[in-house]
């Protein structure tokens, strides 16, 4: 069986750097996943369309700028709207604990804040991917 878990690592919004996203990308690769990384300054529309074309199992977003309350739910809506009902959508970056319940309400399966071991992300994906 040739199936690999495919993950889109995406940076919505106007973050200035992607060091964290790249660390996660490498960890996911080392865990045997195929990681598509689309770089900085992605719009929600670009992220959702890339997710469709690449038929990813997971969309993993990173935001440092504080725009997550707006951009994360927007991406969820667009991805679901394209017919990708089972795609696991997760997030990380600089996200206050207090914001997390609302994000989960909006369809983000889990949020991984700074200090989380990358193994936690890998395990969550393996356990929750459909």
């Amino acid at each position, binding site marked *: *069986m*040739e*199936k*690999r878990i495919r993950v889109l690592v995406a940076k919505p919004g106007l973050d200035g750097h992607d060091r964290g996203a790249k660390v996660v*990308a*490498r960890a*996911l*690769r*080392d*865990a*045997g*996943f*195929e*990681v*598509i*990384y*689309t*770089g900085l300054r*992605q719009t929600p*529309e*670009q992220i959702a*369309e*890339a997710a*469709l*074309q*690449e*038929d990813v199992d997971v969309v993993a977003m990173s935001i440092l700028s504080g725009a997550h309350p707006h951009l994360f739910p927007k991406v969820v809506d667009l991805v679901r709207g*394209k*017919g*990708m009902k089972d795609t696991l959508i997760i997030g990380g970056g600089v996200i206050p604990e207090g914001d997390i319940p609302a994000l989960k309400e909006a369809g983000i399966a889990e949020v991984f804040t700074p200090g989380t071991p990358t193994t936690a992300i890998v395990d969550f994906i393996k356990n929750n991917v459909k």
Partner: protein
Amino acid sequence: MDIAQELLNGNRLALSRAITAIENEYDEATEIMKALYPHTGHAFVLGITGPPGAGKSTLTDKLAREYREQGKTVGIIAVDPTSPFSGGAILGDRIRMNGLTLDEGVFIRSMGTRGSLGGLSHKTADAVKALDAFGKDIIFVETVGVGQSEVDIVKAADTTMVVLIPGMGDDIQAIKAGILEIGDVFAINKADHDGADKLVTEINMMLDLDGVMKEWRPPIQKVIANQNIGVTEIISLIEKHHEHIKANGQLTQRRTERTKNEMLDILNSGIGSYITRNIVDNGKLDGLVKDIKAHKTDPYTVVGNIMRSMLK
């Protein structure tokens, strides 16, 4: 969803799902390919190869835009290496083609080599067919460009473009097996760097020395992809080659070769799966190895027996 039918109707999600089924060897993949096959054969397939960092993806992005200006629809398959240790991959070609993501006439799919020796496999060829059946006019297949995969690209494409950059150390690099033999068009990218003209001269000299009398002399074009310089010239050279192989029957010849190779590849893959299922996975292999090690039998006898039972 009837993936094949939806794909033929222009459903992008169906196209995406079809490629996934192909990649992962899902049971329905064979049925999908059978349904799509009659609708293939129209797209022009352009192979792009070259060493890492040569600017293949950037150049692909620019070429795709030009074709879009001409009103053509474009499919791009970007192949990156899978780690032989972890089985994972960073598929990072898409990052250079961000501007094309929201263009409805462009479909980009990243694929890992997933252990395929040559870098390309019949799965890539099948993914090309899916894009072809979907209606794409031009399909780019962009690969890693090291060693064997360069030769595989030739098998998958109508026209092959090799992208090189100056300053890659020893000029001997350019004459190593494969590169010069497979290029129909050469692009010297980052041509504003030192050594660009020297590289053009060196490749020309190598092509001059080429013992085989070829009727198509591969042109060499300097480009600076990220400044969009030389891109229009490259397109016209590609078109020239396309016209050339159409006119002299080579296009048909190449596609016949391609069909033959794909068939053999699928056949070998099928045999391999059979062996894995019926001898490796069910533990039979372990028993056989034990017998061989105890000198009760030998590998050749064992294989002979397996072959006889397989072919019954």
